[in-house]
């Protein structure tokens, strides 16, 4: 059923008895045109765009848990396209444009909110590096403004401008950046894909990839074997495990990233702010919780939980940036497993195994990429060609040297 | 201008020790009987010794013949009348002399058996004691300093408040345990800021060891 203020009011009069399930709960069919492994944000978005843009709806999304149970439901909800390198910027800008029209496209309010993303800088060298990035964004048609302290101070009067170890000198602002309600993104894509006939199959874990003549022809699952013409992996932190089922090793390590939310507070901060002298970023959700995070814990982990050193590091950065947070209480923290690629940028590509497609390496930036990732992955699956904004996301770029290393950190995932 | 126009004797080459302008003698924090005592150290000679591959026993023998102390194979400190050998990594030690007298010659002699790198000015050292010293240290030391877990002579390389430190436990004094901490010279200001904040609630008596005429 279509969602609108009218349907809401009409249901209100009926005591909300007439709402129907947001998606069906089908049993897997024996065969599909496309199987998408992973019912997270990227997998669901891929399904939606396959069905809505390419007319391919004989598709199953296989999810080992519940829909949206991966990183799409455990991130800090930031959306932005403030990238430096030409391999990245147009892709993330496509994503931003898709965010901007998402609610109408999906008939679902994912609460996309463009309240701005401000990256603070604390030295002349950092200012120049941010200017380089801001200028690259402008060249790619993305909005970017370089602010000085005199502009940042009135926006964020509570920050430590006067007694900081690393004084704030200004910031790079993308006004179109912001946040979205993460679960709603997954649910919106799932509902839209379902409405076009895509089967969303929960509690269905892929345990093997069936090969014939060097080609992937199906999957073994906890709910039985399923055949498919094309098999697409969108399993984030589990990419290496699934790829191993087809005999592949990937340029990926799986790491844990923690995130934090405070108790609900009346509005304190409008957009997203990142601290440039440590690992810290913060925003405030529509419900009032401050949502914040920092660096990855820094070691391979599939455990979905982190440890105190990074928690304390995040809190130290919080206090260094904003000493008024001392009495604000952290309500909850959790960890997600990140598919950290060796250059910090993603992979959307075919693989050496025919019929098998890979979408991985999102590091801790996967949420903002969700729409474009699905859009470009669907394009690749449907046409066999990379989408023009995703041509740099090749799997062979590590061998050729065409790495996309935004930070210049080298082949060490925990430094990206 | 002639090379001899100015001579270095025109300026007195006064030493400016690691603790200069960082900490002063006196009581900090709470008034009353001090729970913590800090004595700022200076004037010692210090060098890193790294044995040649397989050469640790020979080096230890050489050190012993010159100073009377052997080099510890585990994270401990071996103290003699005028020298300490402080474990600082596998086959690596800090050799400390109470004074600079003869230290350069000693290092020269040891360099046949070891890579020797002088570090006399690279570290600030402070000797800590008092009934509440463990409570104060617990605010930054990520190690178990309980008497049973960290015995007299034990040493550790670790960090406090994001600052690398080298610490060890000396022989007990009548009023309790004694620790010594060495910290990189450039970070002694931040170290002291942490220490002063951590010891303040107990009251801390600070003095400067001028026995060697430096500090």
């Amino acid at each position, binding site marked *: 059923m279509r969602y609108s203020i009218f349907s809401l009011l009409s249901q209100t009069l009926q005591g909300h008895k007439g709402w129907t399930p947001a998606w069906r709960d089908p049993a897997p069919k024996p065969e599909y045109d496309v199987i998408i492994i992973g019912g997270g944000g990227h997998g669901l978005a891929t399904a939606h765009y396959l069905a809505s843009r390419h007319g391919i709806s004989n598709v199953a999304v296989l999810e080992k848990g519940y829909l949206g149970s991966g990183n799409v439901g455990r991130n800090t909800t930031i959306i932005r396209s403030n990238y430096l390198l030409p391999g990245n910027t147009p892709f993330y800008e496509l994503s931003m444009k898709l965010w901007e029209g998402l609610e109408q496209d999906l008939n679902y309010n994912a609460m996309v909110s463009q309240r701005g993303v401000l990256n603070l800088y604390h030295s002349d060298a950092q200012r120049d590096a941010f200017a380089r990035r801001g200028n690259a964004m402008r060249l790619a048609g993305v909005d970017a403004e370089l602010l000085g302290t005199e502009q940042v101070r009135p926006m964020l009067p509570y920050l430590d401008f006067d007694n900081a170890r690393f004084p704030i000198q200004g910031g790079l602002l993308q006004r179109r950046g912001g946040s979205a309600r993460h679960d709603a993104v997954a649910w919106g894509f799932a509902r839209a894909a379902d409405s076009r006939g895509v089967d969303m199959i929960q509690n269905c874990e892929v345990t093997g990839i069936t090969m014939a003549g060097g080609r992937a022809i199906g999957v073994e699952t906890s709910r039985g074997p399923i055949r498919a013409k094309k098999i697409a992996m969108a399993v984030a932190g589990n990419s290496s495990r699934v790829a191993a089922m087809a005999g592949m090793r990937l340029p990926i390590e799986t790491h844990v990233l923690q995130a934090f939310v405070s108790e609900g507070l009346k509005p304190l901060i409008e957009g997203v702010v990142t601290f440039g002298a440590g690992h810290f970023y913060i925003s405030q959700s529509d419900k009032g919780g401050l949502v914040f995070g920092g660096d990855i814990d820094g070691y*391979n982990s599939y455990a979905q939980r982190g440890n105190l050193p990074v928690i304390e590091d995040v809190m130290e950065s919080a206090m260094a940036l904003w000493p008024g947070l001392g009495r604000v209480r952290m309500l909850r923290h959790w960890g997600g497993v990140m598919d950290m690629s060796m250059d910090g940028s993603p992979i959307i590509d075919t693989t050496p195994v025919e019929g098998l497609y890979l979408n991985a390496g999102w590091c801790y930036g996967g949420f903002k990429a969700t729409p474009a990732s699905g859009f470009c992955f669907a394009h690749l699956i449907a046409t066999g060609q990379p989408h023009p904004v995703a041509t740099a996301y090749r799997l062979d770029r590590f061998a050729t040297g065409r790495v996309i290393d935004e930070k210049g950190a080298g082949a060490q995932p925990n430094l990206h | 201008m002639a090379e001899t126009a100015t001579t270095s004797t025109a300026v007195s080459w006064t030493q400016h020790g690691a603790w200069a302008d960082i900490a002063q003698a006196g009581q900090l924090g709470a008034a009353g009987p001090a729970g913590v005592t800090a004595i700022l150290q200076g004037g010692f000679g210090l060098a890193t010794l790294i044995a040649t591959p397989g050469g640790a026993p020979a080096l230890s023998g050489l050190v012993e013949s010159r100073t009377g102390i052997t080099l510890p194979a585990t994270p401990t400190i071996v103290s003699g009348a005028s020298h300490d050998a402080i474990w600082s990594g596998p086959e690596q030690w800090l050799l400390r002399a109470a004074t600079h007298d003869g230290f350069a010659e000693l290092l020269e002699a040891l360099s046949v058996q070891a890579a020797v790198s002088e570090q006399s000015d690279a570290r600030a050292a402070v000797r800590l004691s008092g009934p509440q010293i463990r409570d104060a240290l617990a605010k930054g030391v990520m190690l178990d300093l309980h008497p049973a877990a960290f015995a007299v002579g034990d040493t550790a390389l670790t960090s406090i408040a994001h600052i690398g430190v080298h610490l060890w436990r000396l022989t007990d004094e009548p009023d309790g345990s004694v620790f010594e901490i060495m910290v990189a010279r450039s970070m002694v200001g931040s170290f002291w800021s942490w220490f002063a904040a951590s010891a303040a609630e107990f009251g801390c008596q600070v003095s400067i060891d001028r026995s060697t005429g430096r500090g």
Partner: protein
Amino acid sequence: MRITCPHCGARDAQEFSYLGAADPKRPEGMAASEAAMATYVYQRDNPAGVHRELWYHGAGCHAWLVVSRDTRTHAITAVEPAKARKAGATA
């Protein structure tokens, strides 16, 4: 986490920095191929299970260690100095 440094004893993981998988071997010498080196530099097993990995005791004794750790539970089953391992392997 706590890592028991074979030299220093049990320490908070905060004292160490992490590099990654310990098992890939650097292709040495002028005869090594670019492809082999690219595999060494970039490709990872990334197992969900026991992982042999390199940690550096930077705040301690400066030893590089090979730690066997389960990436699902973080349980550590072995820690050995990287130097000894290599010496053992070539002996």
